[in-house]
């Protein structure tokens, strides 16, 4: 028997919510949304963890400027604090080496990280998901039964096609979808909102395309001033209605 399956629950026992940031397509901005959402939730005073599960292409450490962060060993792996976020990523072990992994290997990486990472008490663990409906998505559904899904979408028909499949998949499984956001929005439009309505899930709004985002990567203070951070702050109270005013949610 694989003991890690039994160990996961204990590691997440004091984590109140798990929000998996997902979407159908690569390049849609899941990592930006996950990382910046973690930052704006932490600045509100919430205890936040961020787990980059895009294990073959991790990038959250670049967005956060966390290249040098490493976990410490104490009972398990203790995630380092990065701008007030407890952060875990395979990048902390890989450096810049490529990790070519097949599906079963991806599953093993996810199991291992979940079984040995000591998150402690968190109000929310944000998970940056890899694109699509592959092993990682199936594993998060299987292993983290109480995860809620934040779906990142865009109005391109190419994106809508894949996001529709993701919403269909999540809806069929009856897992909670805490919202759909439109990313890289250049002008007002109703395509993504209509998609959310079709699946009866909350439409949280649009995150505007920000030409300054690239320059802000790696600098948390600059990230906090980007249009996407400003917009995510506006969605914060919808995602955490009890945290308004900097209070921790009641136990």
């Amino acid at each position: 028997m694989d003991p890690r399956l039994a160990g996961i629950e204990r590691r997440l026992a004091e984590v109140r919510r798990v929000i998996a940031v997902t979407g159908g397509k690569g390049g849609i901005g899941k990592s930006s949304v996950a990382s910046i959402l973690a930052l704006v939730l932490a600045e509100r005073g919430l205890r936040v963890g961020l787990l980059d599960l895009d294990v073959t292409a991790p990038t959250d450490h670049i967005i956060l400027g966390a290249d040098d962060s490493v976990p410490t060993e104490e009972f398990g792996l203790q995630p380092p604090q990065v701008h007030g976020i407890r952060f875990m990523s395979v990048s902390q072990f890989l450096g810049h080496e490529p990790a070519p992994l097949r599906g079963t290997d991806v599953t093993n990486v996810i199991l291992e990280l979940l079984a040995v990472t000591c998150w402690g008490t968190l109000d929310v663990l944000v998970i940056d998901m890899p694109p699509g409906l592959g092993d990682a998505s199936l594993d998060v559904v299987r292993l983290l039964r109480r995860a809620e899904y934040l779906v990142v979408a865009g109005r391109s028909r190419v994106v809508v096609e894949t996001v529709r499949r993701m919403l269909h998949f999540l809806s069929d499984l009856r897992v909670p979808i805490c919202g759909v956001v439109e990313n890289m929005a250049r002008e007002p439009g109703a395509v993504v909102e209509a998609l959310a309505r079709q699946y009866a899930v909350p439409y949280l709004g649009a995150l505007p395309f920000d030409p300054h985002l690239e320059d802000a990567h790696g600098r948390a203070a600059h990230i906090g001033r980007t249009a996407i951070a400003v917009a995510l702050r506006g969605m914060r109270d919808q995602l955490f209605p009890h945290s308004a005013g900097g209070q921790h949610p009641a136990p």
Partner: protein
Amino acid sequence: MHEFALAQAVVDAALQTADQAGIRRIVRITVRIGELQQIERDCFAFALNEVLPTTEPRLVDVAIAIETEAARFRCRPCAHAFALPDVQPLEGDSEAEAIHFIPELAHAFIRCPRCQSPDFEVLAGRGVILQSLEGDQ
């Protein structure tokens, strides 16, 4: 020591397995440690002993056996079968540590000795498993 977390997982898994099998008293647990993860047997035995709950009635008489399993690999592109001593030594402590924490990161640091591919299958000896559990119902 991150071995404590894995040891705790072994104990949790043993108790779950006992519950499912209707076992009221576990008498023996056999744990198998894979060579790839480079966990020291004594270190893991210490961790298991430390996390074993002393007040858990199902575990009061348990004996713990730890076996080790050699790592065996097979390259997918060239079908070459190889073992850990056959591969190039790792370049530094950080590479060994990465594999110690997440054995699949071997695919970043180990290559098939024949064709240099990172696309190999770990046939045996990956990490920690609960090999068997014996007890009384």
